[in-house]
């Protein structure tokens, strides 16, 4: 991947209030905002199409929406599923099923009713590539609990545990040299699959003390990470929901540098690394942890003063709000209050690229927002979230062949970039 990113599209005044998060799935880039709506921006734009003319707006909740995540998958029988889920400031989770062909958005009720009472904060989908493992949704609540649900796209639920036992039995018999029937045969003769997406509670990782759980992540190798406002991160096993690692924050009280709130956690695509964004006073740090033994690998730092030694061990001159690994896991994108998006080489733990966001670089002039209603300048807008975009997701301006980036900023803008050059 090239280290240079080129702006491909942007949209100012995308929402009427702060934009708090974004999520990218194949058909849409989804943003959520304090104005209470989510917007689905079409990804496959032609060169002459503007984002604002290709957007679906869905009102969610009057208190505002702060976290959004999307689930996109083509299930058995060619059923295309696109589900957008988001959390409102009132603590409610909302789900919307999007018909990609017609662009129709429909509110769906996936959550079991007994799980609706909690006040949720963040959520994350996990799309399983393994037929034996269900898709999952994890969500944290304001009391610090993490709940995990299994997602069943069809009315017939897939029994994960039974399938696992069968699989083990089969393996044993194979080892003994006995003949086994092919498991694929019995799944073929199933009756017609009825599409009825729903969630079923898998379990809860209870918090030891009531601390605000700010973020959650799920990995492909079966781990769940929860970040807390007091600086600690708990990594648990997805299958048993038992805690395996606990990374403590170094909370020092009584000084200006007291803040150590964890703002984002993100697993690398293979799940071997966990990136944690946390405050260090008014600066932002990004630490990397290896997930098998729970060792701290190091942190991403900007060299200050001289090129060789780093004085402060921070990644951004401001709190870090978003983290995203690229699909190969080689690069990590971070964004923060300092209105910068930085791309890091994960192996070398070095910064390879920095994007400076300025409110003035919005294409459509009347959509440029230099200050908010209170007269506060957003000329250098804090970047609230960043996501890597896989190859072939975005359209237009040569985005098809390269990886890209999408970020949302406090000047109420959404910006899309692509890596330069052909790869």
């Amino acid at each position, binding site marked *: 991947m090239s280290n240079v990113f080129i702006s491909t599209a942007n949209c100012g005044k995308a929402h009427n209030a702060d934009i708090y998060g974004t999520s990218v799935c194949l058909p849409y880039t989804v943003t959520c905002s304090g104005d209470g709506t989510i917007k689905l921006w079409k990804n496959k734009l032609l060169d002459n199409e503007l984002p604002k003319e290709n957007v679906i707006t869905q009102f969610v909740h009057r208190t*505002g929406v702060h976290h959004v995540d999307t689930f996109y998958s083509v299930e058995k029988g060619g059923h295309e599923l696109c589900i957008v889920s988001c959390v409102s400031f009132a603590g409610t989770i909302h789900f919307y099923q999007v018909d990609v062909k017609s662009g129709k958005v429909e509110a769906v009720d996936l959550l079991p009713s007994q799980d609706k009472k909690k006040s949720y904060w963040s959520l994350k989908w996990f799309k399983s590539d393994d037929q034996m493992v269900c898709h999952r949704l994890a969500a944290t609540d304001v009391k610090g609990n993490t709940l995990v649900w299994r997602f069943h796209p069809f009315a017939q639920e897939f029994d994960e545990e039974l399938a696992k036992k069968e699989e083990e039995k089969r393996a044993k018999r194979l080892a003994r040299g006995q003949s086994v029937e092919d498991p694929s045969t019995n799944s073929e003769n199933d009756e017609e699959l009825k599409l009825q997406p729903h969630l079923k509670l898998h379990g809860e990782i209870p918090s030891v003390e009531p601390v605000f759980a700010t973020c959650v992540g799920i990995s492909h190798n079966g781990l769940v990470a929860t970040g807390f406002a007091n600086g600690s991160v708990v990594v648990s096993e997805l299958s048993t929901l038992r805690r395996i690692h606990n990374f403590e924050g170094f909370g020092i009280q009584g000084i200006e540098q007291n803040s150590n*709130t964890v703002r984002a956690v993100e697993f690398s695509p293979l799940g071997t690394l966990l990136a944690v964004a946390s405050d260090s006073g008014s600066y932002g740090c990004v630490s990397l942890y290896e997930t098998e033994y729970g060792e701290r690998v190091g942190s991403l730092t900007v060299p200050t003063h001289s090129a060789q030694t780093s004085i402060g061990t921070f990644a951004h001159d*401001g709190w870090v709000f978003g983290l995203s690994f690229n699909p190969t896991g080689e690069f990590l994108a971070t964004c923060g209050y300092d209105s910068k998006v930085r791309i890091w080489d994960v192996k070398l733990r070095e910064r390879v690229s920095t994007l400076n966001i300025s409110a003035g670089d919005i294409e459509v002039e009347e959509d440029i927002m230099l200050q908010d209603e209170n007269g506060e300048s957003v000329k250098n807008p804090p970047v609230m979230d960043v996501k890597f975009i896989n190859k072939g997701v975005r359209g237009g301006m040569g985005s098809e062949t390269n990886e890209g980036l999408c970020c949302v900023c406090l000047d109420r803008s959404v910006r899309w970039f692509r890596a330069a050059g052909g790869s």
Partner: protein
Amino acid sequence: MGKGLIDYMNDCSTKDDLYKSLLPRTRTIHMNMYDEDISGTIETILSLTKNSLEQHQQPVNILIRTKSKSPISLKFPDHGLYSSVAAHQNSNRIAIMLNLLQTIQECLTSSTVKTNRDLFYSNVELYGKQVTVDRWINTIAQSLELTNARDNLNVIPAQKGLVFTTQEIRILTKGSEERINPYHSSLIPHMDQNSLCQIVPGRNATTRLLVLEKEAVYNQLVNDVQYSPSYYDDCIIVTGKGYPDFLTRLFLHKLQVSTTAIERWEIYTDADPYGVDIAMKYVQNVKEPCRCNKLVHRGVFLFQLMSNQRQQVQYLPMTQRDTAVATRILQRVTESNLPNMTTVQELQRQIFLQKKAEMNVMGRETYLGQK
């Protein structure tokens, strides 16, 4: 010879009947306005209660009408089913009620004015908390259908708010005039709904009104202006010391309707959910006719601190309670048709960032624009 229990049991076929027949005959006293004169009304209520208890030895049941549908019923001595638990509390309540009525009565006949703080200190043991006194005064006012509780009962709220002004302010109440002297910090003087407020024009054409949540910041600013008055514009600085009392809000309301134009109306609070709530209390108080909707909440906001201040600012973590409070306020604010976007945005940011900050950390030059 009177009836024995066995007779009652024979007479009554059901448990409920028995219970009813065993109830003492009580005298019900309705507390509402049945006289033009408040003093007379209170007098009647007190004497009825006294006679009933002393001379007829009959329990009383005072029914107090409230805004909600069911009236408050105070029984003395306490009787009825399930009453043993609540008995102590109930007799305490009636004692508080009668005591307050009597004090009000004394005030009215001697035409003296007392603050509700005075009332509280007149019997701390009985009242326990200041809130109890305030609440009962309100209840009494409601039951007597007084729209203007504080002026009619001769009980006024204690002064809490402070005011500092560079121009003299005159307050005219019922013919008497009270002055707020310039360049002195003073308690906001008492006034009533019909008072008039006049600002004596100063040297400058423009006047700024600053409302501050915290007394500490108020003192700082007042010091600054006092020592170098020529540096600053004409200003009126007000603090309600946290949640504002009625008088502070009434004063601001009077300033708003006064003829002298005040150019800028600003309010500064802490960057926490309570600060937002306090600002709303000043600006959009719907319950009482003392709202001050010219006031603009200008800070302190979280992002204001971050961008204006390059030196380190201490942010405090939001507690579970803070988050819950912020969420509740946010829900309440967004219920209205036209929510104040600044308020909504600030609450959302506080919740999202899980941070709050005190207004003291902001430099004083931000509050007081120099000339």
